[in-house]
């Protein structure tokens, strides 16, 4: 036991530590559920069966996970460059606007093989553009990106409401939503379910982000900027340009939430479709340790919580949707804010096991 602070092996860091965090969260949740007069094991069973018990529930779980992968990756890419992008919510919103506008303009003229890629590209471009403004302000004006990105969430929400209520609203519609998209823009989806091909796009994004971050010179420069900006400058990296690149990619990834929601599920532009996925992405990235594989797993967990939580509220009337948020919040607390809590214990255990 010469060095109890020795770093953990990679598998323990990526797999074991999050598992312990989840276990701690569930112990805490159990106590609260118990106080509410519900058997925690019954609740846990309902949650797991509700999320993974049937093809339909698995479909919804994966559909939610798709959104979390996009926003989790978005946060992670920026984070590797030392940038804290809290604007995923707004970038997702505007990304959806981009893909919606492209579809509304072209869906009557283009076949699916042309319409779908164009709409996906538009989502990425609009999301990137929305992230580029705070990035520019940070790079050239020194405005802190945490403040500007979060402000841009509100600007995005206001812009969307203005557009939906005054400009894009379908004629004769009671509710602020655009006209229906033509089927040429629909992504192939599971029958009667929200799961659609966006999941494939999300997995491709995971792979692409991994290649970008760890197998390209740009990714190397980006990570150097995150670790030590002065070293990055010394190595010849243009920090301003790199900030723009990182936030552009980040915003583009967040914008894909619009693809999943509008092209995959709603098939029209609606209000409020980002529904907090942008913010949850921060927790997903933290929990996934900013690695695409970890993010995919964390997103799956969040999907399970989202879908299973809804089923829980469905089955047990005393567990309200607010309770479900508490449960999700505790899991996030333990896996995000308190992520380092069990680390010293684990390190000691490992040191005991291999005293060399």
């Amino acid at each position: 036991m010469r060095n109890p602070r020795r770093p953990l092996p990679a598998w323990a860091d990526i797999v074991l530590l999050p598992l312990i965090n989840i276990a701690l969260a569930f112990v805490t949740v159990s106590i609260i559920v118990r106080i509410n007069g519900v058997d925690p094991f019954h609740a846990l069973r309902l949650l797991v069966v509700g999320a993974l018990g049937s093809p339909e529930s698995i479909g919804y779980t994966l559909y939610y996970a798709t959104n979390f992968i996009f926003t989790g990756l978005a946060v992670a890419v920026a984070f590797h460059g030392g940038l804290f992008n809290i604007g995923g919510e707004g970038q997702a919103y505007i990304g959806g606007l981009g893909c919606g506008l492209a579809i509304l303009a072209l869906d009557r003229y283009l076949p699916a093989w042309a319409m779908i890629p164009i709409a996906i590209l538009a989502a990425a471009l609009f999301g990137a553009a929305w992230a580029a403004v705070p990035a520019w302000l940070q790079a050239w004006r020194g405005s802190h990106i945490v403040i500007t990105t979060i402000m841009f969430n509100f600007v995005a929400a206001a812009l969307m409401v203005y557009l939906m209520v005054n400009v894009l609203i379908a004629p004769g519609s009671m509710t602020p939503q655009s006209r229906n998209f033509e089927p040429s823009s629909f992504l192939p989806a599971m029958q009667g379910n929200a799961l659609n091909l966006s999941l494939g796009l999300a997995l491709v994004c995971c792979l692409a982000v991994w290649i970008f971050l760890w197998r390209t010179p740009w990714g190397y420069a980006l990570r150097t900027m995150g670790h030590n900006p002065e070293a990055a400058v010394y190595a010849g990296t243009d920090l301003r340009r790199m900030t723009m690149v990182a936030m552009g990619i980040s915003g583009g990834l967040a914008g894909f939430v619009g693809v999943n929601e509008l092209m995959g599920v709603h098939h029209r532009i609606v209000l409020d479709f980002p529904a907090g996925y942008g913010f949850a992405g921060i927790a997903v990235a933290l929990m996934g340790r900013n690695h695409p594989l970890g993010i995919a797993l964390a997103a799956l967990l969040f999907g399970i919580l989202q879908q299973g939580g809804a089923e829980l509220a469905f089955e047990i009337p005393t567990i309200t949707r607010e309770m479900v948020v508490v449960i999700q919040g505790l899991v996030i607390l333990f896996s995000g804010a308190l992520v380092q809590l069990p680390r010293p214990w684990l390190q000691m255990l490992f040191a005991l096991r291999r005293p060399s």
Partner: protein
Amino acid sequence: MKGLLVSLIALVAMGSIAQAQTTLKPAIVYANGGKFDKSFNEGVSNGAKKFTDEIKIAVVDFEPSNETQFEQALRRFAQRGNDPIIAVGFSQAVALEKVGKEFPNTHFTIIDSVVKLPNVQSVVFKEHEGSFLVGVLAALASKSGKIGFVGGMDIPLIRRFQCGYEQGVKYANPSAEVIANMTGTTPAAWNDPGRGAELAKGQFDRGVDVVYAAAGNTGTGVLQAAKDRGKLAIGVDSNQNYLHPGTMLTSMIKRVDVAAYNSFKAMQGGSWRGDVSVLGLKEGGVDWAYDQYNEKLVPPEMKAKVEAAKADIIAGKITVHDYMSNNACK
């Protein structure tokens, strides 16, 4: 669920209900504001409660937390054999169009929007007519000639409230000025009493002495601010007069509770029809509230004028323009 089944079976055994009712398993999917918003959703909840108290049939419900869950919850209830199912709020229209087609034998009711399917009953309200009346009363009660309006989220439905209200104000006092604010552009605007109070105070500072809140739970802040400053306030959806007697001028009542109750009741009695009902003053769907809490604030001559306007609207002598008919207040 098990409890519900057991109680149903028990009721059947008691022979207190007819054969047709054994299959009645009503369900409600609430809007984003949640079941206990003291206003719109809670009205539906009260209607369901009244039905349960009377008929002894439990009503199950679900409070969605995002857009996708509307469709999911409606489908889940339909799959589980719940019937009829009430979808609360305009945001569920899209979801109901899909799910309604998938379950043609299930009966749905949507409140605040229209879905044209044979198995869907749509209930919408002429909020502009009720708002017109409280606008008339506001103009009569105002000494400064400046009238306030605080809306929730800036959407056509709330502009319809505002538009009807403005017409009522101008009808009673053509030189009156209406100062209007919307609370926000996100659904959080339905649930922000602090901001509601700030907006109301801002309006009071500009000389407003009567304010109308059409903002869900945000309205509770507006009504409180009016009480704190000794100004008059008008509540919405449910009768909120009792909240602050002395400063509550009136409330624009929207009988969502009756809509929910009637839907269940019609289903039980076998008279349920998939149609569109537009409930205005004439149908008793909207109204202004006059009770022991505000009778001191509304002298008989004021009351007479409002009642006269109400009679004229019902008789068709006054036409209140509906914002949503052309997305403009003219």
